[in-house]
């Protein structure tokens, strides 16, 4: 490379990748340690689901069933961008970090809403974003970590927003990208790649939090000679999908990461015959080496685009007269999974459909393998319909577990079916590769459907549904958060509402109409003795896709869900 070109490049790098605004560095920032990540203070939200176990539960109870009716906005903040705002605001001792689409991070005073700094990545102009979103920033010491849609991991100085390091993960021009919040474990920044619709081979990769140096990379599909490669035919494994685009959970006691994997690719099952390990699975990984300890596959030979990337919650469950170190996963494949995690295995305990499905005839009791009805399994050359739709019984938005009620709360979608005609399509690097015509994908309400979105409360010990709240004119596409105030917070509907439900009864206790639809994750935090609830409102991506697909099919469906992100923060009116 000529010296002139090199200098030009350095100049560009230094001028394009700096924070946009600098209202002032953060003073007295609290460094994030391994111990704090393991046992986060009740008032903080430093992990994707607040704690490593992925429960999405806050122990704060100042806001509770008796006063939630007095919840009012205390400040808002406009993010300045459109599309899906899916990230939880991340809280560290009075500082809020908000990640948005377009690779933006905003640091705010969590009490006042005043801006400290803002980082905005300069995305390549030839980038195409199938999922224009971001799900949050990970924290370690005095840095934070952003995974970007142009397939980089960027470390920022938490106090100033300045870039500390910037590591390319793979090549965005080949359809590889990142949308997840990095998982941080003992000084390692761990991410997994997206691209299940673009012919990738999925992976989870760890970087040194201080330097950005790659430490290990584990592919979700075994290569030639590796255990499990024989569940693929020929070279199918090289482009077989198994993306890993959601944050894993972590068991510090056994030093095991539990990471979910995505659909097999392309979609029709007969284009990649075999069980297709380790697609649509949960992997148990050693954080030091990336070595896979064990796995459980939720369904074999995925044919429905049913990613199972949402990592299972780690719950100590009293069931069948004993304490089970469980993994709980309400699957995109419509099955509510209760599994037992052991050092060398993940055992099936129980499973049942939590929404209507015609794909499964049952589950093998020993192996936990679901038994497929071939009439509803997409193949080449034939239109095949199936329930639920390709967005599943629950897509990526997270369920929550309340340690007070012992219930699991699911943002479910009932009464949606889908279908497509499989066809052989050659893979072109960087282009959509679905195995069907995208315009052929169907979303169909079931005849006689009375509702679609359904907030469900299940007892994982008994398999019984405790309550549900139905949404007659909307899907439910937003993560759920539970608090010790016996409250369940969720957005996710096309009427732009943010709602609080009684965790024990399902009674709707409070709601607030916001600027846009909410696909983001609610959080609870505390500053100076006051509890707050925060959420981003900013509709987009798959919630929008479902909305578009329903136009004309559901009488009276709200068809105007405006886009544009706003951070909302609420507290009880004094």
């Amino acid at each position: 490379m000529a010296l002139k070109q090199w200098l030009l490049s350095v100049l560009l790098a230094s001028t394009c990748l700096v924070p946009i605004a600098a209202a002032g560095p953060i003073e007295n920032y609290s460094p994030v340690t391994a111990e704090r990540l393991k046992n986060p203070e009740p008032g903080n939200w430093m992990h994707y689901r607040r704690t490593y176990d992925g429960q999405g539960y806050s122990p704060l109870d100042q806001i509770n069933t008796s006063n939630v009716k007095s919840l009012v906005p205390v400040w808002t903040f406009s993010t300045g961008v459109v599309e899906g705002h899916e990230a939880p605001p991340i809280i560290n001792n009075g500082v809020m970090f908000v990640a948005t689409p377009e690779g933006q991070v905003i640091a705010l005073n969590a009490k006042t809403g005043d801006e400290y700094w803002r980082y905005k990545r300069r995305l390549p102009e030839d980038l195409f974003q199938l999922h224009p979103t971001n799900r949050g920033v990970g924290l370690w010491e005095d840095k934070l970590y952003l995974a970007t849609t142009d397939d980089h991991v960027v470390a920022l100085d938490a106090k100033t927003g300045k870039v500390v390091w910037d590591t390319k993960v793979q090549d965005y021009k080949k359809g590889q990208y990142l949308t997840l919040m990095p998982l941080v474990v003992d000084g390692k920044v761990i991410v997994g790649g997206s691209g299940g619709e673009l012919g990738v081979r999925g992976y989870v990769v760890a970087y040194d939090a201080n330097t950005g140096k790659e430490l290990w990379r584990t592919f979700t599909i075994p290569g030639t000679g590796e255990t499990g490669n024989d569940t693929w035919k020929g070279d199918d494994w090289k482009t077989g999908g198994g993306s890993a685009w959601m944050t894993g959970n972590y068991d510090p006691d056994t030093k095991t990461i539990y990471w979910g994997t995505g659909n097999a690719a392309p979609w029709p099952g007969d284009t990649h015959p075999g069980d297709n390990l380790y697609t649509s699975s949960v992997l148990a990984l050693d954080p030091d080496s990336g070595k896979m300890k064990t796995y459980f596959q939720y369904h074999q030979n995925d044919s429905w685009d049913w990613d199972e990337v949402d990592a299972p919650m780690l719950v100590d469950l009293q069931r069948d007269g004993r304490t089970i170190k469980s993994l709980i996963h309400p699957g995109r494949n419509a099955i509510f999974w209760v599994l037992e995690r052991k050092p060398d295995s993940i055992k099936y305990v129980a499973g049942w459909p939590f929404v209507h499905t015609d794909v499964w005839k049952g589950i093998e009791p020993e192996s936990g393998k679901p038994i497929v009805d071939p009439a509803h399994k997409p193949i080449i050359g034939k239109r095949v319909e199936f329930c639920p739709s390709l967005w599943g019984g629950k897509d990526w938005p997270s369920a929550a577990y309340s340690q007070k009620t012992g219930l699991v709360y699911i943002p479910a979608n009932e009464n949606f079916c889908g279908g497509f005609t499989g066809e052989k399509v050659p893979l072109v690097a960087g282009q959509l590769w679905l195995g069907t015509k995208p315009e052929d994908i169907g979303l169909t309400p079931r005849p006689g459907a009375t509702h679609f979105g359904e907030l469900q409360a299940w007892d994982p010990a008994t398999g019984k549904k405790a309550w549900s709240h139905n949404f007659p004119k909307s899907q439910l596409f937003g993560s759920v958060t539970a608090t010790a105030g016996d409250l369940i917070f969720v957005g996710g509907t096309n009427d732009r509402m943010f709602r609080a439900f009684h965790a024990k009864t399902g009674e709707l206790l409070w709601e607030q109409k916001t600027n846009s639809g909410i696909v983001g994750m609610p959080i609870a935090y505390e500053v100076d003795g006051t509890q707050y609830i925060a959420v981003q409102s900013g509709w987009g991506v798959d919630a929008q896709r479902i909305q578009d697909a329903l136009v004309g099919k559901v009488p009276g469906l709200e068809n105007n869900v405006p886009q544009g992100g706003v951070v909302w923060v609420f507290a009880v009116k004094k």
Partner: protein
Amino acid sequence: MCQDPTRRALILTALATGACIASSRSSLAEEDLPGSSERPQKADVLVFAEGDRAGEVIKPQDLQAGGPPVRAWPKDPKTSVVRKGSRLNEVLVVKLDPAELDEETRSRAAGGVVAYSAICVHTGCPITAWVKAAGGDKDVFKCVCHNSEYDPRRSAEVIFGPAPRRLPALPLAPDDGPLTVAATFVGKVGAQQAR
């Protein structure tokens, strides 16, 4: 330059920031063909981007009236360089009934043949579908990533979905011969990042 970096500059930037030098060398060489990443210029001809006739110059009679559109690259007739160094140069060409075109569109058409950027201005996906409009009975361009629809008869106006603006039109010379570019894109191609 920060406001509108070329793809070449971006690749150099990636190299300078320490990313994957080895794997980028081949693409760098390909893009070193003079003009291959430059946007379409006046007097460029359009060539088929795919299929059995990939690389051949497109004439109006090669196109089926009423669509579907074909995908095309601009080609510099003097140097014979096909401008496929940037995906932002890809063009959709479709032959329509001239009577259906509004005045502005007709002024940029070669007979009933119109050309537009093939890159959705929402998040930069390639526009791949030619389907009945969500709210009408005529076929239109559709981006299957997020369902934006554009009407090529009316300057690719957005008629459905989240796209914030029209597709950039590529004016064509009103001649009968090979499809020839009359002027540069009307508007900026690709998605625009919020400032």
